[in-house]
């Protein structure tokens, strides 16, 4: 079975631009979460979506938004990119929104110049 997939794997943008990152969960999983990992730190929670609704949001500005589609895949959008948005963006899926294992994708490395 395929694991969590993310695209693109790498991305280079300039300040002020917009970026869209994509995630496909494990087949049958209904919950998708997004995390940002800055170099040298642990991942930080951005959003959780379950059944196409936002179920949780971390301490990130409104420039960050996301959505989940009927097939449970998800997009993370970041507007007006800043240098500090350079990070590894990780997507995780789980069957439910409850207390079970989350499985992570390989991530998208974003560099903002």
């Amino acid at each position, binding site marked *: 079975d395929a694991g969590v997939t993310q695209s693109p794997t790498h991305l280079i943008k300039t300040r002020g631009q917009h970026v869209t990152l994509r995630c496909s969960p494990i087949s049958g999983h209904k919950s998708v*979460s997004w*995390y940002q*990992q800055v170099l040298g*730190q*642990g*991942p*930080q*929670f951005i959003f*959780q979506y379950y059944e196409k609704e936002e*179920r*949780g949001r*971390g301490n990130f500005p409104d420039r960050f938004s996301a959505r989940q589609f009927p097939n449970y895949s998800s997009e993370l959008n970041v507007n007006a990119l800043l240098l500090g948005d350079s990070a*590894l963006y*990780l997507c*995780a899926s789980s069957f439910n*929104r409850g*207390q*079970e*294992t*989350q*499985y*992570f994708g*390989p*991530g998208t*490395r974003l560099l903002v110049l």
Partner: protein
Amino acid sequence: GIQVEQSPPDLILQEGANSTLRCNFSDSVNNLQWFHQNPWGQLINLFYIPSGTKQNGRLSATTVATERYSLLYISSSQTTDSGVYFCAGRQTSGSRLTFGEGTQLTVNP
């Protein structure tokens, strides 16, 4: 939200040595996971262990939920064990996994 503290921050071992990594939580969690992050950034699931003890090959983990800590044991370490180890927890009413800062493990041949 909860705070997660991992120790030690860095660990250097010779191949074949054993090690113990620790994770402390500031509040109760009922979802606790250990991950190994490889050099390419992939977070690999090691254990889902909100309580009790589990073993998988040379790795084992123990969580004492009442005392809000978890331990990851690595025995007979190999160079391929190198990387960053993270623990993460989620509270009952929460939607997020909160990660520690990780333990950077280096196993030398």
